């Protein structure tokens, strides 16, 4: 038995399955079905169990015994990911039209790791024997991949703290660069460095001598020191600053090339030579006896303090130094990298020198209980350990540390203090600030070797986002079958009128106010993320189409307002394993699930499926309806809810029993004198969104009134052109619901004869295309058909064939004309239309078609619809 992988994609944001990132695969079983237990997978489970990874325990199969094998596969993928040390547990199984194909979704932390885990599981099923031989290496690879890709522990701690405060976090590269917050309120961090960290401050911190000069000028105790550029000058410098001394590179970090407590001429000179291999200049500093402490200052507060102990081993009278180091390194807490609590002990040249000072060599056996030092300095990266002493720091010491940070100018800094007793003021203990570090490692505070961990991530987030600021901009997400583009455009218009710089992502592109940021269909998650990454955007309005949700999940974490225009009979059914309207509702409900607590859902009261969604949302609801008697609306108002509806030509804003007029339907330009019902619906949805964001009534009204013309209203969204007695209407709707709404509107234009140019999208189901043809045939006299870009996988003539089939069943149609190519057919239809007649043009390639149409109108004595593109 083996499995076919049909597709594999990463749902990077909240998705139909869960609110976390999931990897989704479509897998086909060949012989045995997904219901039968797969022996090979079981074998992998037991193989993993031997390595201490449990892929089965505590996980009952949901819903009895169906899809056993699919569940097993999901668990294996989860378990494989968990071998890297980052546990995942969400998973889901979905059916497809095909009995032998399942959709499997498994949570992930690192996309690359998840993908590798999927391939490892499938390879196992294909070639268990080969993979088994190689399993250890492949698991190691997986772990390596995870280590390389995952955020560093410092960054992860900050990101976790941000998420706890509902601050949006979005990784910007494969390294540790993360965007926190959104739009005009965004900040960034790169490891433990924030965007508030000054470049100058960092440069000052790098220059230890300059740092000390500045600190000492402000009365902060620092050890006296001198810079030398040649080892021969080191000894006289040492005598001047006072023995014993420390010698270190002037611009070094991580403790490389540092030697401490030197009091002989030869030791000073040797140390200086070593320091000078790390840079051009070395620092000879008075040695201050005491322990190394690292104080973490964030903003103007001391957040954590650790006493750092140099790496050492304790003799047992049996093992050599060499063996003792090896034994210590077997401690699983000691890792090769910064991700673990402790690092490996090194027995390198530097360690050997330190041993020599203690009259020991690697092969000597220290006495039982003898403490043997391997380094003088206590950096974690060379195997040192850290003891949390935050609660012991004397307030005067903390004050000096905070002052030091401020003088250098760092928002997050690690202040190194040497003091024999951190519980007493430096002036008393004779301690001193020896260094100020930008981008300090947080590991020793997050997971100290001894003592209480400190939530330094939260402290950094508090300094970046003070006073409970969540760094969010208002986000309106609009989903639904029809009318999304017009609705988002209108909402953007309302918010702009309210004085906000609006980022808008639509099927027509991304706009920031009037600036086109990106063109093409921008209703997916990438576009949402782009809007949220724009540093000028103060409010985001995001068209959130079904395709993007299915493909990649949502591009935002939470929204403030979720608008569902309608669902109707649905569209695109049969695509992406969405077979029924119910399933479609499920997908769309992802948006409502991600409504912020306290957010507002704007729902269509006249669409029963939309009304059902109200139950799933945790915020409040504003309904909109074209009629005052929609049952959901009536019920909502009677329980004190909010709604916008149209009654007797007036648009009302209602709250419980009270209502106030917003505008007259007929005075809103885009409804063409209240004739276009679906536009009215879109405008009410938009107004409700504006209301939810507390846009004042007057601004709402002004925004609706100014929403007209092709430049403001979406192009080809019911554009009406009166041309020499003829009525041309350009639109874009491509499903049965849209068509019904259209013909309802067209019915309001008196005309003897109606024609339509139409093509159905080939990726829709046959039954949907037939239905569209029937609606058209019932309402138009002449129908022009064409096939062009929109065949979408069907063979030539197939779409037109289906359309003809449907038209044949319809009542009104008398003439069906089949042309080749969108442009030719539109131009023919425009030319055929006589005065008094109406032509509805369903354009497909919007931008280019509107261009030719403009050209045609001008050539025939008309005016352009819009200015010619630059």
């Amino acid at each position, binding site marked *: 038995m083996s499995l076919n992988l049909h597709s594999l994609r990463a749902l990077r944001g909240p998705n139909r399955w869960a609110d976390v990132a999931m990897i989704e695969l479509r897998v086909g079983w060949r012989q045995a079905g997904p219901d039968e237990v797969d022996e090979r997978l079981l074998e992998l489970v037991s193989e993993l169990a031997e390595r201490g990874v449990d892929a089965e325990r505590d996980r009952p199969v949901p819903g009895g015994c169906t899809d056993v094998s699919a569940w097993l596969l999901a668990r294996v993928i989860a378990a494989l990911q968990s071998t890297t040390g980052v546990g995942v547990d969400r998973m889901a199984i979905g059916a497809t039209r095909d009995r032998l194909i399942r959709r499997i979704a498994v949570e992930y932390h690192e996309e690359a790791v998840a993908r590798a885990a999927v391939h490892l599981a499938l390879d196992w099923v294909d070639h268990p024997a080969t993979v088994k031989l190689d399993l250890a290496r492949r698991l190691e690879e997986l772990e390596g991949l995870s280590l390389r890709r995952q955020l560093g522990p410092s960054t992860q701690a900050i990101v976790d703290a941000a998420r706890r405060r509902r601050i949006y976090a979005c990784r910007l590269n494969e390294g540790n660069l993360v965007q926190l917050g959104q739009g005009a309120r965004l900040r*960034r961090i790169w490891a433990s460095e924030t965007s508030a960290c000054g470049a*100058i401050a960092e440069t000052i911190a790098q220059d230890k001598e*300059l740092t000390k000069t500045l600190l000492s000028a402000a009365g902060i105790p620092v050890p006296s020191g001198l810079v030398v550029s040649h080892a021969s000058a080191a000894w006289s410098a040492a005598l001047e600053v006072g023995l014993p001394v420390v010698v270190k590179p002037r611009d070094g970090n991580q403790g490389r090339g540092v030697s401490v407590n030197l009091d002989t001429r030869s030791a000073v000179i040797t140390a200086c030579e070593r320091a000078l291999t790390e840079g051009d200049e070395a620092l000879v500093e008075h040695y201050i006896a005491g322990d190394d402490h690292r104080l973490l200052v964030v903003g103007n507060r001391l957040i954590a303090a650790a006493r750092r102990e140099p790496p050492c081993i304790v003799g047992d009278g049996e093992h050599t130094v060499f063996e003792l180091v090896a034994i210590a390194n077997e401690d699983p807490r000691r890792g090769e990298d910064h991700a673990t609590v402790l690092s490996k002990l090194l027995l390198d040249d530097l360690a050997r020198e330190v041993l020599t000072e203690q009259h020991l060599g690697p092969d000597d056996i220290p006495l039982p209980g003898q403490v043997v030092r391997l380094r003088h300095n206590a950096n974690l990266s060379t195997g040192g350990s850290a003891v949390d002493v935050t609660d012991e720091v004397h307030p005067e010491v903390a004050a000096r540390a905070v002052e030091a940070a401020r003088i250098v100018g760092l928002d997050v800094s690690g202040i190194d203090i040497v003091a024999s007793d951190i519980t007493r003021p430096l002036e008393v203990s004779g301690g001193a600030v020896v260094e100020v570090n930008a981008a300090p490692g947080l590991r020793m505070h997050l997971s100290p070797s001894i003592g209480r961990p400190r939530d330094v991530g939260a402290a950094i987030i508090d300094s970046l986002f003070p006073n409970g600021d969540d760094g969010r901009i208002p986000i309106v997400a609009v989903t639904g079958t029809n009318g999304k583009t017009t609705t988002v455009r209108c909402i953007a218009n309302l918010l702009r009128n309210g004085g906000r710089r609006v980022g808008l992502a639509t099927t027509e592109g991304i706009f920031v106010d009037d600036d086109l940021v990106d063109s093409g269909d921008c209703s997916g998650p990438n576009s949402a993320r782009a809007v949220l990454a*724009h540093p000028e955007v103060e409010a985001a309005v995001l068209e959130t189409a079904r395709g993007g949700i299915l493909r990649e999940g949502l591009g935002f974490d939470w929204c403030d307002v979720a608008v569902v225009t309608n669902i109707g009979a649905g569209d695109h059914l049969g695509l992406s394993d969405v077979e029924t309207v119910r399933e479609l509702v499920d997908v769309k409900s992802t948006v409502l699930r991600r409504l912020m607590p306290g957010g507002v859902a704007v729902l269509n009261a006249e669409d029963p499926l939309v009304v059902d969604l109200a139950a799933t949302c945790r915020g409040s609801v504003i309904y909109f309806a074209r009629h005052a008697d929609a049952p959901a609306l009536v019920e909502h108002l009677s329980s004190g809810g909010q709604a916008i509806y149209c009654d007797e030509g007036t648009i009302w804003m209602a709250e419980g029993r009270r209502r106030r007029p917003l505008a007259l339907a007929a005075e809103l330009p885009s409804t063409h004198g209240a004739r276009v019902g679906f536009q009215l619906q879109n405008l009410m949805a938009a107004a409700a969104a504006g209301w939810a964001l507390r846009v004042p009534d007057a601004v709402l009204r002004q925004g609706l009134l100014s929403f007209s013309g092709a430049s403001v209203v979406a192009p080809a969204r019911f554009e009406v052109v009166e041309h020499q007695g003829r009525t041309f209407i350009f639109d874009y709707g491509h499903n049965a619901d849209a068509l019904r709404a259209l013909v309802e509107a067209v019915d309001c234009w008196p005309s003897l004869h109606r024609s339509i140019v139409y093509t159905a999208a080939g990726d829709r189901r046959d039954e949907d295309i037939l239905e569209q043809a029937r609606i058209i045939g019932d309402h138009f006299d002449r129908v022009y058909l064409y096939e062009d870009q929109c065949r979408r996988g069907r063979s030539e003539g197939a779409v037109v064939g289906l359309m003809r089939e449907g038209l044949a069943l319809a009542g009104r149609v008398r003439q069906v004309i089949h042309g080749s190519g969108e442009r030719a057919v539109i131009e023919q239809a425009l030319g055929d239309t006589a005065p008094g007649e109406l032509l509805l043009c369903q354009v497909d390639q919007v931008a280019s078609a509107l261009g030719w149409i403009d050209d045609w109108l001008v050539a025939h004595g008309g005016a352009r619809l819009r200015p010619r593109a630059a």
Partner: protein
Amino acid sequence: MEILRVLVLSGPNIWANFPVLEATVDIGRFEDHPSNTLAGFNERLVAWLPTLAEHHCSVGAPGGFLERLRDGTYFGHILEHVTIELQSLAGAPVEFGRARETSRRGVYRVVVEYESEALGRAALEVGRQLLLAAAYNEPLDLEAQLGSLREIGERTLLGPGTRSIVNAAKSRGIAALRLNDRNLVQLGTGIHQRRIWTAETDATSSVAEAIAQDKQLTRCLLRQVGVPVPEGRTVSDAEDAWAAAQEIGVPVVVKPRSANHGRGVSIELSDRDSVLCAHEIAAAEGAGVVVERYVRGLQHRVLVVNRKVVAAARGDAELVTGDGVHSIEELVAMENGEPLRGESDQLPLGPLVLDDIALEMMERQGHTRTSVPDSGRRVVLHLNGDLTADVTDAVHPMVASRCVLAAETVGLDIAGVDVVAEDIGRPLEAQGGAVVEVNASPALLMHIRPVSGPPRPVGDAIVDALFPQGKPARIPIIAVSGTTGRAGTVELLKVLLEASRRSYAVASSRGLFLRERRIAEGDRTDAFSARRILLSPFAEGAIFEVDPQGVLESGLGFHQCDVAVITSLRSASARHSRVGDRDREIKAVRAPLDVVLPNGTGVLCADDPEVCELSRYNRGRLVYFGQSLDNPLLRAHLDQQGAAVSIERGQLVIASGGHIRPLCAVDGITKRHRHRRGFRLLTALSAVAAAWAFGLNEDVLSSALAAPESTRELLAPSVPERRSSPELSSTVRP
């Protein structure tokens, strides 16, 4: 001729309100030989330093100094002019100088303005040698001497960009304090301070700088927000570079992923071989290689400061024009001899370099380094040469808004945005132009000294960004000077000001106090201690005790003050011999009064006639203090609507605007404060006058004078500190 000693007066001093060197020079036997008596001296001197002809001297017109030379002047005076000229030639455009005889025959005080102490000192020494060589008609390798002076200048003077910012700050009266011998400068004082380091400010984010360093990341971020960028990607090896070129479509640019100043960048590559070759050049820079669409057009640099485009420059191709005689190599050497070209960051044009890219470019034009192009034939070496032409006014508003967005997206407050476009006056989108790079800490020279077009005030833009109009740049300062009674005044003043709930830093003969902490003990009346306070980001205001002796030796540590108190000029006779002469001492005491702000106040002791004399130097308001309202001078001052603090009927009173307001019984004050070292009744009067002049109202003063004292133990520093450091012993100037 011998230079006996050099005093570095690093702040306002008895000679000038800016830093000067005061050299004591014994001209020895030349006292008997003024310039006109030494045959050929003047001619030799002017032949070496022809620019001396520009010096006005006391005559007041160019050539003035030459006139004095011809008429006969002394070596001290000549050394002054020569030292100034040598500093100018080495890059420090200083002007001020003085030469004065002393009481010792043949010994002069030669005073010269300086920018860099090291350069000033070196110029004095070279000047001395030059004078001797001219006098004795000995040879002198002036070029070598000037060369070493220039080298000192390069090392210790501010770079041109930083200088333009510092000058802009000074023109707004904002103090500039150098923090190291490079370009790190503090603008403003105390809590209001900001920092710059070349074209970086303390608001320049280091994360943003790291982003700008990564071209690929920058491009992704810019594209995301709709800034036009050339499409491209990083490549793994040479073959991948060619693959990328084909995906993107030729011609392409190949460049290192992170590098600056166009190093390793090859452009307009269309065939496989040149892409592979360019990959090798770029890869040599390390950190990966990027291949991107070649954007046709000219290189532009748009300078964005705080969300505004403040300058733009256009780069033109680097080329040489053939003359039918010289080889390209020779033509390049000739061009590099032009005065505008050189390695120095003070020059607008860099030298032409025949690097791999130039050779590749020449090869495509059918040349090698030794070929001789026909007369008039132009050979392009680099398509993107130095940015030389100012085009600020031509930038289309849409281009400007894209550049601002680019800077903002990367997160930089100051950014040099590189734009390639055929015409910067049209939107980028309309011509396929693009933003190709965003640079942190951009060079400013091209905007300050463009080869063509007007210079742009970029320094002012940066200072305005750091200190928006209305934002304070300085902390208030009270300076207490005089020959006696200073320390007591300062101490009582501190007590009075504390009553107003403001915390003031103090530098006095009793130590250095900051944030309720004594950060240093001992006499801290010197310029260095005052500067320590101004450097502190915690100082909200300062009280400085000024010792006249310190002023003579190192100048003032501050360049302006709000209130200058002169306690007395009396009883200084014992020190006359040390100070030198009475006139210098008075000037030294007066120094703080000379730098009182126009809206500040001079507080003078009315009981000391010599102090009263100083009132004519006071630019601000005048407040007298004296023991009796019957003092005729004080009375006259009050009659002219002046203000004074004095004693009437056993009460300490403030007399102002015809009103006399008693504050507190004199007995009470004496009783409460007499334990203070140096307390006298005049001390109380001067302190109250200063506090009142400073803005404390009568009620606060009255209750402060009556309040019982708080006694607090102050922590003293335990680690011995070094008294001075080279970095901080730099200049304060207006």
